[in-house]
């Protein structure tokens, strides 16, 4: 079977699975799987850029996805005027002070030398920290006191929500630059631990800095790029058209909204996929793979390995940030507690490995396929477990077995990953 035929038939299979969901379960769940599949495919593309192209082991995907989510709040929510007046500038001044002291410390480290260097840097950082806290804390208190039940944060810029997607990419890219500057060049598993830590810190910041995005109180009602269902149902022209298809207005409106998202997401995915393919086939892509396969040789050829690693790390993280912004837009709310590393970091890794690392189409395929499995394992497991326990007497054990089905998906993902690694280590669509 040629590569092309294999790719086409596997994508056809995934399409069939999603269509099957539409026919057997409901078109709403099929579209939901499709939408999240598109987002997952985009995240997988980002990780594939880092791992497949360059061999960078980034297990902080969750952090970049969450930063994308934050971007949606910061860009699209209307600003809270009272909060800005209460302490907005003070917070900004505090942050600026903090950043300035870090920059000063780095400069001091570079410019000075000798025994006193460590003490000078430590003193600058210490003084900077207390200055920052002194200015920053009061501002935070003032902002969070403003109408705490409904806002208590600075709000966003009130810009169109679609603009949040590139902003999410930029935010993630900025974070990736800072991380890359410090952690790249370390050994692969050190980089892994470092990125794992960064992701946890990003989530901790999202949960605790209430002035920024309300922390665990969540930001609800994010603006949408597509019409609201209620408005559609109230629109006589829409209801009439829906009736033409034999659909009731409620179902038709939910389908229409989801289809709108699917269209937007597809556009983004296709653009990124084309760019990634062009990058892979370009001299830049060949250089990346040369660095991945033999760093020493590439360095001997005069390639700037650290620089290229930084570049690809930022690009991949930016893609994850864009995907994160899209996902938060789809959800319509930012809930920091929902970010779990198994779901947002390691599941994406399963997608890339199963799809085929180093192959962009493989990453996209893995994104769709694994997302489909992740969603459908639960009802499938429920059905099987229902069958197994049907003969059992009612009781503690039966209840426990039925309850445990919801954790089956973790087990299944582990088994899929291990099976692929063992029997088809290059994935469903191997790198050419």
């Amino acid at each position, binding site marked *: 079977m040629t590569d092309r035929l294999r790719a086409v038939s596997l994508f056809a299979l995934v399409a069939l699975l999603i269509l099957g969901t539409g026919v057997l379960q409901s078109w709403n769940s099929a579209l939901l799987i499709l939408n999240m599949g598109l987002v997952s495919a985009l995240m997988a593309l980002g990780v594939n850029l880092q791992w497949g192209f360059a*061999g960078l*082991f980034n297990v902080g995907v969750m952090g970049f996805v969450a930063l994308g989510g934050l971007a949606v709040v910061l860009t699209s929510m209307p600003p809270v005027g009272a909060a800005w007046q209460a302490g907005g500038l003070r917070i900004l001044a505090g942050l600026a002070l903090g950043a300035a002291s870090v920059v000063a410390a780095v400069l001091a480290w570079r410019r000075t030398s000798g025994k006193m260097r460590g003490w000078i840097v430590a003193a600058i950082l210490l003084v900077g*920290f207390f200055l920052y806290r002194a200015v920053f804390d009061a501002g935070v208190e003032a902002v969070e006191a403003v109408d705490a039940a409904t806002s208590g944060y600075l709000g966003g810029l009130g810009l169109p929500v679609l603009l949040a997607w590139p902003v999410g990419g930029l935010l993630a890219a900025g974070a990736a630059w800072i991380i890359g500057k*410090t*952690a790249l060049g*370390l*050994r*692969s*598993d*050190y980089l*892994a*631990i*470092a990125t*794992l*830590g*960064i992701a*946890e*810190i990003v989530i*901790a910041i999202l*949960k*605790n800095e209430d002035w920024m995005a309300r922390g665990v109180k969540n930001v609800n009602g994010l603006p949408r790029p597509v019409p609201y269902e209620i408005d559609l149902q109230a629109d006589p022209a829409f209801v009439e058209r829906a009736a033409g298809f034999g659909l009731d207005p409620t179902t038709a409106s939910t389908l229409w909204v989801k289809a709108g998202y699917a269209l937007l997401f597809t556009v983004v995915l296709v653009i990124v996929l084309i760019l990634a393919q062009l990058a892979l086939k370009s001299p830049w892509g060949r250089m990346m793979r040369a660095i991945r396969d033999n760093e020493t040789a590439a360095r001997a050829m005069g390639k700037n390995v650290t620089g290229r690693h930084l570049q690809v790390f930022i690009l991949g993280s930016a893609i994850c940030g864009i995907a994160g912004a899209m996902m938060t837009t789809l959800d319509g709310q930012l809930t920091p507690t929902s970010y*779990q*590393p*198994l779901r947002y970091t*390691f599941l994406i*890794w*399963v997608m890339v*490995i199963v799809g085929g690392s180093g192959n962009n189409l493989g990453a996209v395929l893995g994104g769709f396929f694994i997302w489909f499995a992740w969603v459908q394992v639960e009802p499938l497991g429920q059905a099987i477990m229902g069958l197994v326990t049907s003969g059992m007497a009612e009781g503690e054990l039966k209840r426990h077995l039925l*309850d*445990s089905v919801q*954790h*089956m*998906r*973790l*087990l*299944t*993902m*582990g*088994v899929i*990953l*291990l099976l692929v*690694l*063992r029997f088809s*280590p290059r994935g469903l669509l191997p790198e050419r």
Partner: protein
Amino acid sequence: MDLLNAFVALSNFVLIPAIAYGSQLAIGALGVTMVYGILRFSNFAHGDTMAFGTMATIIATWGLQSMGVSLGPLPTALLAIPVGIAACAALVLATDRVVFRFYRAQKVVPVILVIVSIGVMFIYNGITRIILGPDDQRFADGERFIISARDFKEMTGLEEGLAIRTTQGITLVTAVIVVALLFWFLNRTRTGKSMRAYSDNEDLALLSGIDPERVVRVTWLIVAALATIAGVLYGLDKSYKPFTYFQLLLPIFAAAIVGGLGSPLGAIAGGFVIAFSEVAITYAWKKVLEYSLPESLAPEGLVQLLSTDYKFAVSFVILVIVLLFRPTGLFRGKAV
């Protein structure tokens, strides 16, 4: 100024919790560092191995409790630990046989083994949640305190109380015993010596007739024991929740790396460095400072450097500083 009260407050809120937490991290980090030293990869499934061993211990504890067995003032879980270790050892040995051995034979690059361990992590995670569920479980019984704050105040007449929980005492005693046994084993026994030889130089060890598969098996046994003990101690001291154990991966790895991956002594030092910095930086120093400074200098705020939710940030920053300035860790670990 009242330095005595300051010291009591300091011990109560910083020293004792940090020593207990540090011992738990140290035993966890020993497991990570053993896998790294012998099998040469970072085992991402270690947190979930701890969760599994603890789960087996909890179930055995419940079994003992329902039979009416108890240890009096000590928690029943101590009796159940061997069962937990046995279950955990069976699991990791089976995993090694089915999963890791294949890749070892192929001599794959370490990062592939790390990805494989992510798959194993998913599976352990699923197993633990299917058997016991994802919720909090408390399984500590027996006396809660060795000295409670009130008794201490009555005994000494000081203003500040000093409470030592039973679990904290047990943690420290167990940690000392475990570490002593481990070092005796590694330095004095034939198997332990062959393990160190294998870790130092694989080819030389093979030439001198050391059976690699045996070394690996013994390593997994020790790792299972360390993981279960660390998990049970942490669970007794705080509470058991699978997700918390997964999150412990970060401070444990930080401890192992700060100490120097592959160095057992380093893992212990790293565990205490991480624990003390986490507790000290997230503790509100107001009380201690009020006692130790003259009244005119007493602080107004809480003097808390970071809120407790940022404790991960502390392990992380220490990790990055050590990696930047001393990449092989404090105790010169190995670099594969």
